[in-house]
């Protein structure tokens, strides 16, 4: 199969197959796709700009809490709540981006981590709004006007997620191929040279940070009505670390790779935790093997294999 047709074929399978699957698999697939969308948004920073964020859970949590609050406290329908979740996340990310991009490398990683933990603390402590450690439960999938109820069912919600992931993928792909996106690759490869050519690295980094927050915020927004709740864990550094692993295992700088990485990570975690309590150890070893021997990730290796044959 040629690489050109791989994408449409995968999307077609995602649309056609699920009605025939047992319901728990539809749920699994939905969660994998949401995580994949989240990992893809981090790839914009890690793979395309060389910005190693250690606090990407911040945007996931922001998207989830914002959407949960909108759905719990307003009569607005689900699609509007999702859009608000993503938009508010991007808006809050703007000043954070402005501050974090003053630094590079390890300092950048630590600052992003600090902001995510700060938001975690707020979610934990601001009981009256966030529900504290209980989080926000009973998040509804408010139907829209004119009989728009299709996304309230399990399968309907799955299709909602597929539509969002495919749409976000196409937008991200257009973004990384645009003049702005190609300049990001230059900044990733040699920031000093990029600025000598006339690119202002700081402005470009802020732009990509906000775009990544918009897409990652959408992932979080999709999660809250999917799970029916939002909890402080969504901001926690553990999730920031896991999504970084998904990007690296899947293949940084490929967009599609991190989605594959998310599926791989999720399924492996669930499979391993069923057979051993030390599943994290095995997962860690697998991660080390990837970093050492498959640095281009699953998708990178597949693509290289396809171009060789």
């Amino acid at each position, binding site marked *: 199969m040629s690489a050109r047709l791989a994408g449409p074929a995968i999307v077609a399978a995602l649309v056609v197959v699920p009605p025939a699957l047992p319901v728990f698999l539809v749920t699994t697939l939905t969660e994998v796709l949401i995580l994949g969308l989240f990992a893809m948004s981090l790839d914009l920073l890690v793979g395309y700009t060389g910005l190693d964020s250690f606090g990407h859970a911040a945007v996931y949590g922001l998207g989830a809490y914002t959407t949960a609050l909108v759905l719990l406290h307003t009569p607005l329908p689900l699609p509007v709540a999702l859009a608000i979740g993503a938009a508010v996340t991007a808006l809050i990310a703007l000043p954070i981006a402005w501050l974090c991009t003053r630094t590079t490398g390890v300092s950048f990683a630590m600052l992003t981590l600090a902001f995510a933990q700060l938001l975690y603390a707020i979610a934990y402590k601001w009981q009256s709004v966030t529900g504290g450690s209980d989080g926000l439960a009973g998040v509804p999938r408010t139907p829209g006007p004119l009989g728009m109820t299709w996304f309230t069912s399990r399968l309907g919600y799955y299709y909602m997620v597929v539509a969002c992931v495919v749409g976000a993928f196409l937008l991200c792909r257009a973004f990384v191929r645009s003049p*702005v996106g190609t*300049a990001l*690759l230059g900044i990733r490869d*040699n920031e000093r040279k990029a600025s000598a050519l006339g690119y202002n690295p700081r402005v470009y980094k802020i732009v990509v940070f906000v775009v990544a927050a918009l897409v990652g915020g959408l992932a979080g927004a999709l999660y809250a009505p999917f799970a029916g709740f939002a909890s402080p864990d969504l901001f926690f550094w553990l999730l920031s670390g896991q999504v970084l692993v998904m990007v690296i295992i899947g293949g940084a700088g490929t967009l599609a790779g991190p989605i594959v990485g998310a599926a791989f990570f999720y399924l492996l975690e669930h499979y391993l935790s069923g057979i051993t309590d030390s599943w994290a150890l095995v997962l860690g070893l697998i991660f080390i093997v990837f970093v050492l021997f498959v640095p281009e990730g699953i998708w990178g290796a597949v693509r290289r294999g396809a171009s060789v044959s």
Partner: protein
Amino acid sequence: MSRHFGAIAAVDQVSLAVERGEIRAIIGPNGAGKSTLFNLIAGELPATGGVVRFKGAPVSGLPPHEVAARGISRTFQLTALFPRLSARENVRLAAQARDAGRWRLLGAGATAASSRRHAEHWLERLHLLQLAGVPAGLLSHGDQRLLEIAMALAQDPELLLLDEPTQGLSLEETARTIALLRELLGGGLTVLLVEHDMEVVFSLAHRITVLHQGRVIADGAPAAVRSDAAVQTAYLGGLD
């Protein structure tokens, strides 16, 4: 202008004026302050004294990307490229930096196409077109030096700063680069050239400024500088 690193004056009250269309070489022994002078002009280092004017407007204190946007482009002493991107993409990014459509998200294809045409023009001028698809990091050192010149020219500069363009090149490659530069720099472009290789300097420069320990010790036409006693001493007879 001056630049001090602690008590050391790397560039000490150096004053020079370069005319439009002039090719000016800056020479001097190691540590004379040549590269520091470039970094001051390009905005990589803040000056501790003095001012840089370009076409009458001060550019000192501006960050590198704004200096570049005013029409000053540079190459680096140690080759600076985007190693994972193809040679074509390297030059295309240089051309795109000056393109009005560089922030466009819709209709981005037009920006890409015009910068790509621009890039291929300069790759061809530097005889690199057959290597356009090769990642820059995999090119030979000589081709990398040429690619960096192609990038600087693709920025469509009015002032070009060349930092040792033949550094590390073999004799043949140096000769090839001199021939190319003669051909490329003829069109009224203003050039500041830092170079150790005197053959390059004397075959390209209209005028030569000699730096020694951060100060200008001679300035004038190539022939006059060649016979200057202070220059001979500074180079310990290393010149000719």
